[in-house]
């Protein structure tokens, strides 16, 4: 099977969908002429292969980029636009939160928004809090937006293709650290359904719910725990909205214990939603209080020693699991 990083997998998904459907185009800052000669990046060589009409470099204008997507989508195209770094989502957010997410509702279902906003995220680059800020919980809090956050290149390919074919606005958040971690990706066409979590590892003692880059941490921790006889089940959400409640609940019913792991800060983080759901629906199955392992409630620090300790790691997860097992 081909080995691709997540950027390459995204690239392949874009290629396949652009080839399949004339209405699909991409736009964003430097999606065409990039500053990097790096085939691992998501829009590499698309300009060369699809031309300027379908691969549009824009001025530095996030609001206009998101607005372009809204306008193009409502008139029947299927735009895929890119926000370079997650913090700049704030500049584009009016178009996404107040328009893309609401105009179908406001128009009595007459307007449709088949658009994808790709956002690059993640700490670990030493680029600081104005470049790195995981905002998925904000977006998930806005009704009308689907929120996808893949953890593996294979999922990214299938989910992005599904997002492009979806008739709703989808916010598709890619952790940039995953661009550089090759994993097997099927070469053929496939769609990965939005709204379906996946159990990435079976286990009987504790459920670890996670998504995006933290899946790697969860799997490493699970391997470590297994050596001590603790079998963790790892549930990769893949999609935050709509949330796959069944997979989470049935896993917790089986294990009786829950730890949620994400890189974003804790207060108001999406782990709160997962824990609330489990408390509502599976309280009687819980043998211990749930635990959350998250980034601390501070802006992402820049310097290597500080950033390293900001990002949750296996040790923290193992410690949290041991507290409740």
């Amino acid at each position, binding site marked *: 099977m081909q080995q691709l990083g997540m950027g390459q997998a995204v690239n392949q998904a874009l290629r396949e969908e652009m080839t399949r459907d004339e209405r699909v185009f991409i736009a964003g*800052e*430097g999606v065409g*002429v*990039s*500053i*990097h*000669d790096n085939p691992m990046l998501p829009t590499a060589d698309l300009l060369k292969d699809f031309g300027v009409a379908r691969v549009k*470099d824009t*001025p*530095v*204008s*996030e*609001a*206009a980029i998101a607005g372009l997507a809204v306008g193009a989508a409502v008139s029947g195209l299927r735009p895929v636009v890119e926000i370079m770094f997650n*913090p*700049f989502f*704030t*500049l584009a957010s009016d178009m996404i939160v107040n328009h893309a997410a609401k105009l179908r509702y406001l128009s009595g279902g007459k307007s449709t928004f088949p658009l994808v906003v790709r956002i690059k995220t993640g700490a670990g680059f*030493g*680029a*600081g809090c*104005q*470049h790195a800020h995981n905002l998925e919980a904000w977006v998930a809090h806005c009704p009308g937006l689907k929120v996808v956050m893949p953890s593996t290149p294979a999922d990214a390919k299938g989910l992005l293709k599904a997002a492009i074919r979806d008739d709703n606005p989808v916010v598709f958040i890619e952790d940039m650290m995953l661009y550089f971690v090759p994993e097997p990706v099927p070469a053929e066409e496939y769609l990965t359904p939005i709204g379906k979590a996946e159990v990435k590892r079976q286990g009987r003692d504790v459920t670890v719910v996670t998504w995006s880059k933290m899946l790697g941490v969860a799997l490493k921790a699970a391997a470590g725990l297994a050596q001590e006889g603790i079998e963790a089940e790892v549930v990769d959400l893949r999609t935050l909205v709509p949330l796959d409640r069944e997979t989470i609940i049935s896993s917790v019913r089986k294990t009786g214990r829950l730890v949620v792991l994400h890189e974003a800060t*804790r*207060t108001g983080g999406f782990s709160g939603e997962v824990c609330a759901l489990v408390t509502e629906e599976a309280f009687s199955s819980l043998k211990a209080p749930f635990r959350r392992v998250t980034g*601390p*409630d*501070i*802006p992402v*620090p*820049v*310097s*290597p*020693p*500080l*950033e*390293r*300790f*900001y990002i949750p790691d296996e*040790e*923290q997860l193992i*410690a949290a699991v041991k507290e409740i097992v």
Partner: protein
Amino acid sequence: MPRQEIELPYRIDYLSILDEQGKVDQDLEPDVDKDFLLKLHRGMLLGRRFDERLLQLQRQGRMGTFAPITGQEAAQIGAVAALEDSDWLVPSFREMAAEIWRGKTMENVILLYAGYNEGGAIPDGLNNLPIAIPVGTQTLHAAGIAYAMKYRQEKHVAMVFFGDGATSEGDFHEALNFAGVFQVPVVFVCQNNHWAISIPRSKQTRSKTLAQKALAYGVPGIQVDGNDVLAVYSAAREAVERARSGDGPSMIECVTYRMSVHTTADDPKRYRREEDVEGWVAKDPITRFEKYLKSRKIFTDKKIEAIEAEIKQEIKEAVERSEKKMEELGDPLLMFDHVFAELPPYLREQHEELRKELRQDST
């Protein structure tokens, strides 16, 4: 007459005082003393040499990524030279020379680029803001600072820097509009360095000039040769005086060129030709000014050598100090400092959690 041209209150001038050979237009030559001219030169040269050193440090892995300023020294030094210490500097992320002129230490510049927010600390007694990464956003707080100056009836001016790319952000337009409507003391300095990462100025806007954007907001705008420190200084002085005397905002477009990479993560060969860059070597702001200083006998080659040696030594000492400081700053617990004025209980708990984890790591 059903159709006639509307006269606008302002037009767009282009100002250049020193040509590429360092020949001065004597009618426009600003009336400043020799020491001031030498200070301008030193500020630019220090910016250039320090930029070169920073690039080496980054390449050696001793520092993180940063946005080099080479080629833009005149646009920065000429503009801030018109400020008084009590005025406000609101930078973007590519104003290292201006920040140093305004009292930021070189060691703090290194610290910041190495990732330590301590390096962003505002020097005591100076009104500088930290760098702003989200493009164009700082124009809005500059308008806010100027609003406060008017409110407090203080005669200080805010000077905000931004790039050609930033003029495409809504924030820039809203800032100009507020400043125009409220007539507050702010000077908008656009460093048109022709590039916004890989996007050329021609693809950023159809406007012939960036300065003309100010006109739409009833704000005077001027375009200057941004590699001519005397032109930038003259335009800035005029704008600062206008602001200080209560006559509102202005915008200055400095036409310059980003001679170096966008940031150290970038390979410009992907999108621009060497020849394009070479054309700008002849317009270099520092060589041009040195020619002028020599022609005015303010300066000899010997003197330049002495200044170069001095600067080299200063940079060397700053690098040493910064590396010492970094050793003190490696404590991960520091990440909880400065989030709030005080550490609220829930953060104290998280701080405590990390402390425990670190203790376990070390045993």
